[in-house]
């Protein structure tokens, strides 16, 4: 395990010490839950002092009574679109969106144009992150050359160049033989394999969930079994090869069942679910609004409940956004012709808090834990509030309400499926690898006054 700070970013600068006075500190992983003066100094959480007691010379003090300090979030599934898609996003804007969402670290997918499949590609992206990124960024490389699903990339060299994992995300690895080779080769290359699980034969030209809504709209459906059968296939292969896999963006009840069965059988498998699959269903697609088009698609209410249950029980390990920016012209077209994907970094926490925590479907501690649990599957230490830990924390106001998108976005793209929603719970500040990566504007002004 390595700390978040070993990923690439422009660095923390030379921050002043920071005291969060009377903040509610909550770190379920470390058993921290109470009111403290939380002190950050020299890039570390140095002290959880009794409220009102901390004294640090030259520290910035924030009166944080009623606010929460938690381990900052970690997103193992982000599309930064660099190289080749800079009209939608790049390292600078995407990492700024991450910081605004309370994330101290993100992992960027490799399905760029061209795909990230050589050591030179990884090196170039790492340099860009070192110059531009507001939070630490890790880059995945593709599993197969050109994402063509046929030949493995030079995984050992990619690892040495600094790739943090491998994924052909955006596309499944169609061939079971190639999948097996990748799992075997993990014994040498050693890095995590993040899998977009979908059977292209079953998905066909599908554009939304197969069910009553697709039947009504006359849209070709993507059946739930397109995902679950591939999870079952790859879980079997991983068990057989003694490999570990990370299953991306679960969407269906059948998939949660397949994951639970695989874990029970001893497969070294982790998985993620997105805020949109946890809070929306294919009913949203009735409007034929391409803003709700993504892959995997929004499914039915039974699927959504199964995802929430899985998140609660730990069958689903973490929440990932699958932040997928697109320019307006990719979405201002009929549903079938529109690009798949939605942005998510800036709304993830508030959406989970508003739609799951406040109604009682998920307790806050579990939500907080799952928001940062995406680090471990990729060998990165999860953020922690324990004194002595690298300072990766988010400060949020659980009662603040705001309208998604009303003040614009940090992301270059605006294809959020939550635009216009009233959300409760707002990220005020993000500390990443010891430095302040983000301050919410009105909060920052209030503090200054």
């Amino acid at each position, binding site marked *: 395990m390595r700390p978040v700070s070993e990923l690439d970013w422009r660095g923390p600068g030379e921050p002043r010490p920071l005291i969060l006075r009377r903040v509610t500190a909550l770190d379920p992983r470390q058993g921290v839950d109470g009111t403290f003066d939380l002190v950050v100094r020299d890039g570390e959480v140095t002290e959880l002092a009794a409220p009102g007691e901390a004294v640090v010379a030259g520290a910035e003090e924030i009166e944080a009574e009623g606010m929460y300090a938690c381990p900052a979030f970690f997103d193992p599934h982000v599309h930064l679109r660099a190289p080749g898609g800079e009209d939608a996003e790049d390292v600078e804007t995407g990492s700024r969106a991450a910081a605004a969402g309370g994330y101290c670290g993100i992992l960027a997918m490799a399905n760029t144009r061209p795909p990230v499949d050589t050591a030179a590609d990884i090196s170039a992206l790492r340099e860009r992150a070192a110059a531009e990124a507001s939070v630490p960024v890790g880059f995945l490389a593709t599993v197969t050359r050109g994402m063509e699903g046929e030949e493995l990339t030079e995984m050992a060299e990619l690892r040495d160049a600094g790739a943090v994992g491998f994924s052909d995300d955006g596309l499944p690895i169609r061939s079971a033989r190639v999948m097996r080779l990748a799992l075997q080769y993990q014994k040498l290359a050693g890095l995590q394999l993040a899998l977009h699980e979908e059977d292209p034969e079953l998905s066909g030209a599908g554009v939304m969930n197969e*069910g*009553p809504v697709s039947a009504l*709209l006359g849209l070709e459906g993507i*059946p739930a079994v397109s995902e679950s059968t591939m999870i079952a296939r790859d879980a079997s292969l991983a068990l057989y090869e003694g490999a570990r896999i990370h299953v991306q963006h679960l969407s269906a009840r059948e998939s949660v069942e397949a994951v639970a069965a695989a874990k029970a059988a001893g497969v070294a498998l982790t998985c993620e679910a997105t805020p949109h699959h946890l809070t929306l269903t294919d009913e949203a697609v009735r409007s*034929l609004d391409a803003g709700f088009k993504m892959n995997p698609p929004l499914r039915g209410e039974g699927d959504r409940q199964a995802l929430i249950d899985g998140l609660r029980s730990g069958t689903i390990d973490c929440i990932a956004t699958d932040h997928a920016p697109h320019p307006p012209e990719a979405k201002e*077209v*009929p549903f079938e012709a529109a690009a798949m994907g939605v942005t998510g970094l800036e709304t993830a926490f508030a959406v989970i808090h508003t739609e799951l925590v406040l109604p009682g479907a998920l307790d806050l501690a579990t939500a907080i834990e799952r928001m940062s649990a995406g680090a471990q599957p990729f060998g990165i230490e999860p953020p922690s509030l324990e004194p002595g830990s690298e300072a990766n924390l988010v400060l949020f106001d659980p009662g603040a309400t705001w309208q998604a998108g009303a003040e614009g976005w940090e992301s270059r793209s605006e294809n959020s499926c939550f635009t216009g929603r009233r959300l409760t719970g707002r990220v005020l500040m993000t500390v990443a690898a010891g430095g302040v990566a983000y301050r919410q504007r009105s909060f920052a002004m209030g503090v200054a006054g």
Partner: protein
Amino acid sequence: MRHLLGVEGMERADIERILSRAESFAEVGRRDIKKVPTLRGRTVVSLFYEASTRTSSSFELAAKRLSADVISVKSAGSSVDKGESLKDTVATLSAYGPEAIIIRSPHAGAARLVAGWTDAAVINAGDGKHEHPSQALLDVFTLRQRLGDLEGKRIWIVGDILHSRVARSCALAFAKMGAAVTLAGPPTLVPRGIRDALGCGVAFDLGGLGEADVVYALRMQGERMNDSFVPSLREYAAEFQIDSRRLGPRQLLMHPGPVNRGVELSAEVIDGPASLITAQVESGLVVRMAILYELLTGRDRPRGDRADTAEADGLPAPTPIGEPA
């Protein structure tokens, strides 16, 4: 009504108002001079991204019978083929200030999108496999002429439900008019979840067809064979063809056209006494006149104020029907 985007979202009263208007247009059609001045000076754009003979010609003639100016844009040879986006095409055509845009697109939801981009009334002439509302309205019109009322009638829609916008719009419209609808076809061509979506019956063979008052056969497209939805047209015909053996003497037969003779229908039933197929085509013209009338009269000129007052009854007095131009 502001637009005709789909049967879903229409009230039964909307359907009845349009159909009774169509009846008065049917009377016009029996005169020597078949044209009325109702839409004189108004512009109708017909934008077809898919090949169509009957729907496009029917709408075009309907608009001309109402004295509207008609521009027809077909995808072949147009800017559409040069990669222009739908949004840009609509912006260009909207510059002519049309009162209505009739659009057919291979994509579900295209008409609804267009409605968000233009001041014109938008008529969906078929969007992907989603809806084809004018077809459903003309089919209801045809059936009401024959049966008087659809209340309690049993209607079987037979064939490739999966790929049929006609099936969806008709099932919705027939149900709104009080009929009990059953969708029947090979299990590979009946979409999962359609029963819940439409509240209709589903059958995977024609064993129960005898209960139907109306049998509505759909076109079976040859390309479905290539996708292995059915093993062969021969087997499809053996299981699902409507012929004189399957069609009872009191049952009515409908088909949206064009018919594949010998596939979904046998020759003798197409031309038989139970067939309403020719009546459907005739209905198409008057119902489409009524749709244009519904959406375009009462709209103030110049355009701009299209508040809901335009939908209120009696505002302003429409041109009397039947006045020769």
